[in-house]
C-alpha cells in the first residue's frame, strides 16, 4: 500500500501540472461568457492540448491514459476552478455506450466532438410511468422504411434544452416481455417534433426536463445495437452512470460541520466541545473517510485491470443520505437561525441548499432502495425479488391504472 506516486506517475503528474499552469483559464477568458461557454472554451483548450478525455483512445481524441493517470489528472485539474459538469453525462455515460454500440462512422464523427466539448449530449431513458422500473418505458418507435418514428414522453432529462444529441431507449415491441422489446437510438435533439419543458424541482431550480416526442423521425443507421437489444445497451450506460455520479459533489460535509461547530456556542462553549456534537461528527467522518478510501480501493482495482462492479453503488447509497443528515445537523447547530436561507453567507446556505437538494440525490440515478437491491442481489448474491412481470408480454403487465 502506498499513497505516493511511482516515478512514472510522478512524471505524468508533473506534465499535467505544467500544462495546467500554462493553460489555465484567465479572467479575460471568462469575461462576458455564460458558464456553458466557459466550459466549452476550457474543454476545447484541453482537447487541443491533448488533455481531454485522456482515458479514451487517441483515435477518438483521447490519449489512452491509464486509470491511475486519469485520477492524477483529475486531482491536478481540481486544483483549478474550472467547469466540468456539462460534460459528465456525455463523456462519462454516453460516450462509453457509443464506443460499444454505435456504427464506426458515428464513433468517428461523434466521439471527438464529445471530447472537445463541441457537442453536448443528453440521456433519454426515464419515463413518467417508469421510475425505478426503468425498463417499463412506453415511448414507441415504429419502423417506417429506413426510418423510425418516435412517439412518447421522457422525463428527468438533464441538459435536454441545450443538448445537440441524445441517446434514447424506445419500445419497439410491446407484445414481448418487458426487457426484450426495447431498442436504443441516437436522436438529433434539433429534429422536428421534439418539445422540451423544464421541470421545476422543490428547490425552485430546474435541472431536468420533460421531453415530448411527436412523430420524430430517426434514420435506422442511428440505431445502437440490434432491434430488441436496447436493454443490454442501456446497461452499458447505467454501469457507467454509477461510476460517474459517485458520492454526489460538493455540499454539506464534515468540514462544514466542524466550521459551524467551532463558530456557534452551546452553553457558553464552542459547540465542538459538546460531546453529542462530537459523536455525530465522528459518525459522519466514518462515512466520508470510508467512501474516500473505498474510492482509492476502486481506483487501485481499476488500475489492475479489474472491471468496476456493482459494489460502486455504495458511493451514492451512503453519500446521499449522509448529505441529508449532515445538512440537517448543521442547521440544528445554528438553532433557530438554521432555517435562514442567507444567499450571502456560504457557511449557512450550503447546509440549506444541501438539505433541499439531498432528497433528489437519493432518487436520481437509482433510489436508495434500488441501490440496496443491487448490492443485495449482485454483490451478495441474494435471490431476486419475486418478479410478477417476468415473462409476461409488456402490454399485459399490471400497471394499477
Amino acid at each position, binding site marked *: 500500500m502506498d499513497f505516493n506516486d511511482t516515478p512514472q506517475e510522478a512524471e505524468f503528474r508533473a506534465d499535467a501540472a505544467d500544462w495546467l499552469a500554462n493553460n489555465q483559464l484567465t479572467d479575460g477568458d471568462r469575461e462576458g461568457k455564460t458558464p456553458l461557454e466557459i466550459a466549452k472554451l476550457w474543454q476545447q483548450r484541453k482537447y487541443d492540448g491533448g488533455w481531454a478525455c485522456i482515458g479514451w483512445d487517441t483515435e477518438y481524441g483521447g490519449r489512452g491514459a491509464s486509470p491511475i493517470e486519469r485520477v492524477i489528472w483529475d486531482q491536478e485539474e481540481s486544483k483549478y476552478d474550472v467547469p466540468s459538469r456539462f460534460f459528465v453525462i456525455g463523456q462519462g455515460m454516453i460516450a462509453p455506450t457509443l464506443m460499444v454500440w454505435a456504427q464506426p462512422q458515428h464513433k468517428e464523427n461523434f466521439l471527438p466532438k464529445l471530447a472537445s466539448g463541441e457537442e453536448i449530449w443528453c440521456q433519454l431513458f426515464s419515463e413518467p410511468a417508469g421510475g425505478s422500473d426503468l425498463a417499463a418505458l412506453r415511448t414507441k418507435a415504429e419502423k417506417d422504411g429506413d426510418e423510425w418514428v418516435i412517439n412518447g414522453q421522457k422525463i428527468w432529462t438533464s441538459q435536454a434544452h441545450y443538448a445537440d444529441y441524445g441517446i434514447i431507449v424506445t419500445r419497439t415491441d410491446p407484445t414481448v416481455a418487458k426487457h426484450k422489446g426495447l431498442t436504443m437510438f441516437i436522436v438529433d435533439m434539433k429534429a422536428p417534433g421534439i418539445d422540451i419543458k423544464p421541470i*421545476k424541482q422543490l428547490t425552485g431550480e430546474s435541472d431536468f426536463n420533460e421531453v415530448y416526442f411527436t412523430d420524430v423521425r430517426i434514420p435506422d443507421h442511428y440505431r445502437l445495437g440490434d432491434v430488441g437489444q436496447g436493454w443490454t445497451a442501456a446497461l452499458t450506460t447505467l454501469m457507467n452512470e454509477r461510476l460517474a455520479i459517485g458520492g454526489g459533489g460538493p455540499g454539506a460535509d464534515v468540514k462544514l460541520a466542524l466550521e459551524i461547530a467551532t463558530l456557534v456556542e*452551546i452553553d457558553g462553549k464552542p459547540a465542538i466541545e459538546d460531546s*453529542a456534537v462530537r459523536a455525530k461528527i465522528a459518525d459522519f467522518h466514518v462515512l466520508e473517510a470510508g467512501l474516500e478510501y473505498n474510492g482509492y480501493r476502486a481506483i487501485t482495482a481499476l488500475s489492475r485491470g479489474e472491471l468496476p462492479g456493482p459494489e460502486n453503488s455504495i458511493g451514492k447509497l451512503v453519500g446521499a443520505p449522509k448529505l441529508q443528515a449532515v445538512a440537517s445537523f448543521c442547521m440544528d447547530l445554528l438553532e*433557530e437561525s438554521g432555517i435562514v*436561507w442567507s444567499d450571502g453567507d456560504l457557511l449557512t446556505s450550503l447546509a440549506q441548499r444541501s438539505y433541499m437538494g439531498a432528497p433528489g440525490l437519493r432518487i436520481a440515478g437509482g433510489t436508495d432502495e434500488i441501490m440496496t437491491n443491487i448490492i443485495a442481489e449482485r454483490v451478495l448474491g441474494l435471490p431476486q425479488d419475486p418478479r410478477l412481470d417476468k415473462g409476461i408480454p409488456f402490454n399485459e403487465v*399490471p400497471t*394499477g391504472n
Partner: protein
Amino acid sequence: MNFEFSEEQLMLREQARGFLSQESPPSVTRSVLDGDTHFDANLWQKVAEMGWTATTIPEEYGGLGLGYYELAIIAEELGRSVAPIPFSSSVYLATEAIMAFGSSAQKNKWLPGLASGDVIGTLALSERSGRTTAENLSVTLENGGVSGTKTPVADGMIANIAVVACRGSAGHVQLALVDLAQDSVDRTTVTTLDPSRGHGKIIFTDTPAEVLGDGEVSWSALEALLDRAAVLMAWEQLGIADMALEQACDYAKQRFAFGRAIGSFQAIKHKLAGMYVKNSLARSNAYHGVWALASDSDSLQLAASTARVASTQASLFAAQENIQTHGGMGFTWEFDCQFYYRRAKMLSLALGSERHWQNRLVSALQESHANAA
C-alpha cells in the same frame, strides 16, 4: 383512568379537519410559498372567526375559556394542513406569555385583540446563530426603550406586537411588550427554508416598550413558557408527520413498478411501517404532554420535552421519507411533499433544536429520578 379525548373534543377535531380541508387546501400554502406575502390573511381571518385564536383566553378577555385539549386538537389540524398563518407565534407564544406574565391592564389591552385575531403577536427571542440564552442575550431594555436586533422572528413581518426577551439595565432578564407599529422598529424579510411562514429580522432602536408584568422574569419561567408552547408545537408536528405518512401510503398503494404496487415491496412497506411506529409513539407522548399542560402537572417539563423530541423525530423522518417514497415526482415543485419537508424542518428549530430538547428532557428525568430516590 381515561386516556382519550372526549366526544366533544373528537367532534371538534372532525369539524376542524373539515373546515381546513375547505379553507386551507394545499393551494393556499402553495400561493404563500410561491408569492410575496408572509401569510394568508384570508385564512387567518376565517380561523379567527372560528374562535380558534380565542381558545384558551378567559371569557373576561373576550376568549372562549376552553382548555388545552381543544388547542392541541386545533394545532394538529393546522399541522396537517400546513396552514400558512401565524397561529403558533400569536397563540402558543404571545398570548400565552401575556396570560402568564402580563399585568391585568396588559391583559385587558391585548388579549381581546389576540382573541379576535385582530392583533397578531409573536415572541422575539433568537438573536444569533446558536441558541440565545440568559447569558448571551444582548437586546436591552433601558428606560422604557428596547434596543438591539432579533432574528429570525417567526411572523415578525406581520405581527402587530412582539414579546421581546431582553436584558434590563440591572442585567436581569425581562420580557418587553412592544407595539411593532412604531417608527423605531425596522423590519426586513428573512428568507427561510419555509417561505409559507414568513420570518423577519427586527431592529429596535430605543423603541418605546412596556415591561411585561412585574419586571424581572426568570429564565426558567421563560423556559416553562417554551415548554407549554412545545406541547402545542408537538401536536402541529404530529399533524405534519401523519399527513406525510398518509400521502406516502396513498402513493405507495397506487403507484406500480415491476408489475405491482410499490407498497408491496418491503423496502417501501417497512419504511412506512417505521413512520407509523414513530408517529404512534409521538402521538402517545403528545397525549401525555397535553395532559400535563391541561392539568398543570409537575411533570410538564418532562412531558413537554418528551413530546417535543418525539414529534420532531417523527415529523422529520416522515417528511423526508414521504419524498423518497414518491421518487422523482416527490422532488418536484408541483407535488405537495415539499410543504411537509420544509415545515417539518422549520418547526423542528422553532423553540430550539432536538439536541436542546433532549438535554432538557434529561434534566427533568434527573430531577424526577432524584425525587424518587
